[in-house]
């Protein structure tokens, strides 16, 4: 692997669904000789693109799990993570962004900045990942890259600066004019592999000069030398200009914009040059870890090979040779046979096989040095674990993980399926922190939880295909919550005297609504409740939050203040105060006007204009609130918030209502109080379920 880290790029390719991420990756792999034949995403040849290595991905034409691959371009190692475009799989995108140094944000030159691009952009901001934009599909009818650049500025707030202008658009799209080199680039040969550089065509010379002028103006902010050169009207060297663009990109204050058509093999190579020229190498990025042994102090990691190793497991895969753990090494080196420690478990690991992935094919390596992405075989861990050298105890910063909002019950049809299901669930929960599973103690059913219908749907399918687990699935269930709406007092005495040691504890105080999930406030003075029993009080209250007294949904948003109490020198115990807290909670809960909350989803529909009214109607039918609707060319974007419980089966309804021409994305927005009529329905259903389970 490349030892000069300035010659390494770890990049992601992120965008809205169907913007051409996988197609672009395929072209990159072709031009870098990693593959020798181009397959299409929904391949007519039945092969499917290389990056979509899972069978299900090939079938649906979507990318579900990030496949990692590497290639070499201009003597640089480029590690590429292909990321999913569906919001349901956003945790994959987030995990990728955590380990990447730079991103190519792909936008469609017709559809422009779409909802998922906005989500991905927010994630990039959270992890401070520098990016460049590639406006794809310039060959499509209605292509307008300049409109997309405006949207990048207005909708995403990027300082988007075009580095190229197109030579023709739609069916006349032939190539691009490079505004740094001021040359025209054409792409010839069967697969556009032959890059032909010519002078700028006369009819585009004026436009090229004008756009370059604007570009110089914006880029000069990042280099005094460039500003001086412009002011003194000196000739501006390519190196000077490229240095300034790189500087702006690394500071995340500039987004260089490139264009082309991956599908028509136009202008992919200049975009790859831009990855080398403008996106950061591992040494350009500061990565942080937490030193557990030193008061959890933040430590800046150094991309040095001889420093103690620090690596992060960001993705797991179950291959034919066992678990494959994808890692990014931030410091030091993971070497075959050398001991590393899993910080979470404290277990020693001696990696036996290290590999570098090329989608589903692999290449064995001796070491994975700092700054690189690779994979280890046979290491037992979960996604997000940190591996370090034995002499340090660091953990990488926790990844932002969302709570699941939907659940589904599973029932294996036979014993064999039960074993297979258990294996599959064990694997999936390790791979995906937003996918959770548990057994319902009352019904004995296995419950899986995730971020949306499609999210769970894909895991059920994978269970069937990859593990031969034949399972019956129940109806999707919404993760309701309970909360209180007003302050209520409690003053409860737990007293038991039934022979033997007695139990005594009194707690008084109040509960009130708050923004946090749970807050405990101890205002006991004068030792009315001895200090050693305070944690028991907190524990008692916290236990009550797991299952609400109203409808047995988890309780959130409660602040508990204890301000008085009493104890008995002989009969008080930790157990007595846990019980007293439970009694106090139940006493106050009903007085505090409990309500049920439901997850509300932010839904964005993109539809041809003629179906705008119909689509808004569909939202109306689902207790949705339309926040607004905007026409953008031939398409309309409708933004709404809709309760998750009303979104089941929406994709089918939307398809049939718009002749399959509309698409939508959905992501969790917030929890909101359920209207009374719906709350009554939920109550009824819950009662029925209880009665049925008793039978």
């Amino acid at each position: 692997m490349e030892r000069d880290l300035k010659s390494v790029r770890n990049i992601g390719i992120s965008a809205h669904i169907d913007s051409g991420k996988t197609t672009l990756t395929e072209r990159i792999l072709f031009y870098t000789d990693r593959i020798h034949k181009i397959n299409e995403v929904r391949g007519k040849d039945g092969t499917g693109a290389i990056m979509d290595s899972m069978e299900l991905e090939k079938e649906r034409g979507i990318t579900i799990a990030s496949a990692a691959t590497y290639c070499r371009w201009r003597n640089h190692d480029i590690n590429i993570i292909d990321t999913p475009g569906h919001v349901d799989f956003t945790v994959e995108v987030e995990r990728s962004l955590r380990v990447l140094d730079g991103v190519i944000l792909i936008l469609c030159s017709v559809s422009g900045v779409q909802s998922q691009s906005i989500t991905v952009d927010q994630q990039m901001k959270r992890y401070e990942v520098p990016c460049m934009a590639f406006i794809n599909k310039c060959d499509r009818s209605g292509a307008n890259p300049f409109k997309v650049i405006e949207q990048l500025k207005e909708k995403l707030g990027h300082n988007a600066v075009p580095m190229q202008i197109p030579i023709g658009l739609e069916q006349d799209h032939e190539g691009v004019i490079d505004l740094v080199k001021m040359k025209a680039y054409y792409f010839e040969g069967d697969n556009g592999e032959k890059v032909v550089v010519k002078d700028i065509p006369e009819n585009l010379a004026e436009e090229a000069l004008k756009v370059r002028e604007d570009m110089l103006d914006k880029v000069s902010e990042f280099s005094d030398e460039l500003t001086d050169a412009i002011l003194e009207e000196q000739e501006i060297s390519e190196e000077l200009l490229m240095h300034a663009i790189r500087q702006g990109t690394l500071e995340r204050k500039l987004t260089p914009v490139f264009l082309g058509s991956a599908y028509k093999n136009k202008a992919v190579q200049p975009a790859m040059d831009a990855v080398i020229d403008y996106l950061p190498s591992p040494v350009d990025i500061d990565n942080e870890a937490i030193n557990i042994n030193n008061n959890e102090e933040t430590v800046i990691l150094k991309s040095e090979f001889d420093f103690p190793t620090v690596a992060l497991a960001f993705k797991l895969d179950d291959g034919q040779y066992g678990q494959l753990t994808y890692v990014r090494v931030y410091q030091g080196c993971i070497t075959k046979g050398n001991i590393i420690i899993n910080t979470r478990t404290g277990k020693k690991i001696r990696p036996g096989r290290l590999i570098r992935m090329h989608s589903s094919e692999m290449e064995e390596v001796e070491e994975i040095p700092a700054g690189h992405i690779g994979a280890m075989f046979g290491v037992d861990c979960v996604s997000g674990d940190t591996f370090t050298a034995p002499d340090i105890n660091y953990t990488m910063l926790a990844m932002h993980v969302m709570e699941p909002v939907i659940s589904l019950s599973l029932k294996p049809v036979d014993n064999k399926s039960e074993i297979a299901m258990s294996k599959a669930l064990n694997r999936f929960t390790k791979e995906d922190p937003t996918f959770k599973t548990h057994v319902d103690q009352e019904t004995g059913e296995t419950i899986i939880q995730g971020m949306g219908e499609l999210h769970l749907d894909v895991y059920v399918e994978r269970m069937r295909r990859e593990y031969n687990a034949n399972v019956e699935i129940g109806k999707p269930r919404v993760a309701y919550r309970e909360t209180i709406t007003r302050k209520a007092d409690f003053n409860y005495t737990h007293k038991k005297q039934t022979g033997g040691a007695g139990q005594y504890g009194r707690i008084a105080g109040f509960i009130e609504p708050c923004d946090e999930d749970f807050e405990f406030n101890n205002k006991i003075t004068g030792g009315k409740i001895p200090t050693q029993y305070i944690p028991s009080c907190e524990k008692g209250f916290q236990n009550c939050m797991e299952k609400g007294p109203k409808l047995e949904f988890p309780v959130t948003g409660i602040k508990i203040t204890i301000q008085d109490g009493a104890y008995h020198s002989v009969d008080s115990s930790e157990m007595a105060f846990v019980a007293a807290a439970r009694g106090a909670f139940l006493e106050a809960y009903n007085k505090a006007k409990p309500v049920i909350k439901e997850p509300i989803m932010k839904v964005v529909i993109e539809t041809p204009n003629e179906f705008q009214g119909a689509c808004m109607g569909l939202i109306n039918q689902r207790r949705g609130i339309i926040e607004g609707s905007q026409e953008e060319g031939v398409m309309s974007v409708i933004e709404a918030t809709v309760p998750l419980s009303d979104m089941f089966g929406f994709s089918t309804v939307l398809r049939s209502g718009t002749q399959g021409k509309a698409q939508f994305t959905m992501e969790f927005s917030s929890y909101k109080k359920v209207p009374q009529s719906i709350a009554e329905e939920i109550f009824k259903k819950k009662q029925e379920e209880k009665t049925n389970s008793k039978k």
Partner: protein
Amino acid sequence: MLKQDLINRSPVCKILNPDTISQVKFGAVLSRAGVGKTQFLVQIALTRLLNNEKTIHVSLSDSMEKINLRYMDSFNKLVDSIGYVDPQKAKRLWEDINRLKLGIAYNEASFDPKKITDYLNSFKKNSNELPSILVIDGLNFDNDLSDLLAQLEKISDTFNISIWFSMKTHREESLCADGYPKQFENVKDRFEKALFLNPKDDKIEAMVLKNGEDADRKYLLDPATMMPE
């Protein structure tokens, strides 16, 4: 309580009788560019939202975000005008009324009443309460809009919805004989309420062109808040 206070503070309450705003078929706010037509239309819609009525705001020039911002800004100004209000209370009220409002941004060329009809039909189909007022901001009344207005009149009848328009006048044009701007003169018979905003020194003069017996009344407004003096 806060709702009623805000309705009472609204310039709409002083100038046009707010109870009858959603009872007319067509209403209009006229002025030349930049005087405050849209801002006043938003105030009209706000009084309806505060009365728990649904509203639709169609703009042919503003983006969806801008429409939403205009409402939030006007609401905040109204809240500020009554002195101290518990911010939490104001926030909750905003969340309540914001759910009743729908902003739609159209390109002028593609604006088609059929889309509005489709949408309103979905309310009927689902037995949902219909919006009481539809604001259309940005139609060019220099053009002949007879066909379009006839279609919108039909919508108003079918769905019992009051439609309020902004109407841009021009500085250089003199008023017609009966004191109406040219753009309004051509369509005046269709309208039951109309207000003409005109800059006067550092204030805005609001002249009621049509409002039953209250026509021809004049008020001076603060340009920043649109509040009457």
